[in-house]
């Protein structure tokens, strides 16, 4: 697969997407994650909040891949971490299997965690350097009693490695003996070990070389189809998102600004922020690229400690009107399956 093909994945995207059922797997309602800022030397007290996620709603259907895009710091990773309960959300509900993940205690959480897994961005730091690959993949199997027999576990580890495109002998290697792409495959194998239903790919390919990226994305797609997985695909790379996702959500400063089918969004983005984001993606054809008018977003991203009133995007919005600074726009369905948080579209 060539570099050009990988980045211009939109040409081939749709044909690889697997079957999506109508059954909703996970619903996120009004999710808020505020990180307190404390001051005081002896007894700390809260002085402000970083509103990393400030009221986000979406659902994901079984077998579906939802892309979550936005600039760094917009809260997309935090949203993923909340679903994994790596953070305790400030408010909101995350309904999975009819249970609110936010309310579960540690023991109940273990059952959910077997079903929800994560693939991290940095393949270098997401594997414990002191453990062999076999141990990394085998540990959850052993700890959760999924496979207690030593020999069977080794067999399973070998199968998982093979399925993720690595030779089973890698089980006896340490992470530092492997390349980035190989490590990311280990990360995937580790996630798969738990036989999950739902995997959160947190910038899963961003740190990889472009050629490796394509291989890993293809692998993810194969696995989705084979194991009937559901993905939340968090990325800032729109071309990758277009390649793999069924639907795409756009976040800005802790808020969701747009959500729709993948092609719909790429072709008919409505929110001015989404439009600007899409515009910033370079087109591989230099001729076309030259003729294209770049729409540059003015100003800096405001601080999440003290976000703008009303629509958080209004200070930078080309369409902004006076009322934007007062009224928080509803997240409304403008067309079927196309939701936008803007009063002016």
């Amino acid at each position, binding site marked *: *697969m060539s570099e050009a093909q990988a980045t211009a994945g939109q040409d081939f995207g749709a044909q690889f997407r697997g079957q999506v059922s109508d059954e909703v797997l996970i619903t996120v309602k009004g999710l808020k994650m505020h990180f307190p800022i404390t001051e005081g030397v002896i007894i*700390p007290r809260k002085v402000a909040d970083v509103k990393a996620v400030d009221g986000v709603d979406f659902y994901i259907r079984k077998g579906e891949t939802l892309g979550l895009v936005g600039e760094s710091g917009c809260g997309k990773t935090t949203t993923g*971490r909340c679903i*994994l309960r*790596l953070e305790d959300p400030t408010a909101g509900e995350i309904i999975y299997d009819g249970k609110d993940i936010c309310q579960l205690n540690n023991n109940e*959480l*273990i059952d959910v*965690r*077997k079903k*929800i*897994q*994560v693939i*991290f*961005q*940095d393949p270098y*730091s*997401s*594997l*414990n*350097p*002191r*453990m062999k690959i076999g141990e990394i993949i085998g*540990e*959850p199997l052993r*700890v*959760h009693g999924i496979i207690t027999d030593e020999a069977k576990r080794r067999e399973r580890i070998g199968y998982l490695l*093979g399925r993720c*495109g*690595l*030779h089973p002998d*890698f089980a006896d*290697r340490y992470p530092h*003996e*492997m*390349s980035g*792409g*190989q490590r990311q*495959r280990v*990360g995937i194998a*580790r996630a798969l070990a*738990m036989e999950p239903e739902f995997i959160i790919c947190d910038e899963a390919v961003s740190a990889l070389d472009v050629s490796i990226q394509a*291989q890993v994305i*293809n*692998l993810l797609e*194969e696995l989705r189809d084979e194991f009937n997985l559901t993905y939340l695909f968090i990325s800032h790379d729109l071309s990758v998102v277009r390649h793999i996702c069924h639907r795409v959500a756009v976040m800005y400063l802790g808020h969701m600004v747009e959500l729709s089918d993948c092609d719909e969004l790429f072709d008919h983005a409505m929110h001015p922020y989404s439009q600007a984001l899409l515009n910033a993606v370079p087109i591989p054809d230099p001729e076309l690229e030259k003729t294209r008018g770049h729409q540059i977003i003015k100003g800096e991203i405001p601080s999440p400690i003290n976000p703008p009133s009303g629509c958080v995007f209004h200070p930078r919005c080309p369409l902004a009107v006076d009322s934007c600074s007062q009224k928080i726009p509803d997240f409304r369905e403008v067309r079927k399956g196309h939701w936008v948080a803007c009063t002016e579209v």
Partner: protein
Amino acid sequence: MMVTVSEVQTEADFEEVAPKKPWTQVAMDLSRKQPLGVFGLAIVLAMVVAAALANVVSPFNPLQEHFDAMLVPPGTDSYLLGTDEFGRDILSRLIYGSRTALLVGFVCAIVGSTAGLVLGVASAYFGGLFDLILQRVLDVFMAFPLIILALAVVATLGPGIENVMIAIILPFVPQCARVVRSNALAIREIPYVDAARALGFSNARIILRHMVPNVMAPYLIMLTTFLGQAILLEASLSFLGLGVQDPIPAWGLMLTNASEFFEGSPWVAIYPGVAISLSVFGFNLFGDAVRDTLDPKLRSR
């Protein structure tokens, strides 16, 4: 389009791990890079051998008194390093004394730094109120000079080898915990810890299996630093009469007893002092080499 298993396999073939060097080669390389460290290790090993084979290599029973040869100078009869006030052979007492020194050194260093390790990692992992309170408690312990805290503790518990070891361990714990915590704080932010949490592992497992092994470098550095310090502290406390007690052979004790006789019979003070200095010297050289190898930036006093 699709990447096949075989394709990746070939990729892996490119990156064969370098073959393991024979240990002689490793030792040669090490002695070229860390000559002082290897020298230190040699001293430590000599001590370990002396301690292990004390009953074989000692010319005399270290407890046996010879009232016909009290305080005789080195070289008299078969007393190579002379005798003490009870006519006990100094060389034999030195050899047996290395057992006490090694016991104190290793037990204090290992227990002190391991307790510090667990506290430091737990403090970093749990954070919040636990971390805050622990930090303040450590601050309190760190506010005492080492010897003063050890002196106060041994004054409370009373003299004797066990109590002296407790008194030495106690000030070590916060020192190690402080260093380990700052390292563990960084590790806590590394995704493999998040991965472990996402896999539903217990806190104990995450701390012990995923964080602790990754702060081994500062831990080992603190441990080797403590080895020498423990022996020195034990000697100091013994000199104040609070340490190991007769008739158990121990260097600090020998020096204490010697302080009464050293003017007329200097050898009773010289050899135990040399033994203490040499062993601490060895441990420090070795510790420095460990530090240089593991982390040249980590400094400690």
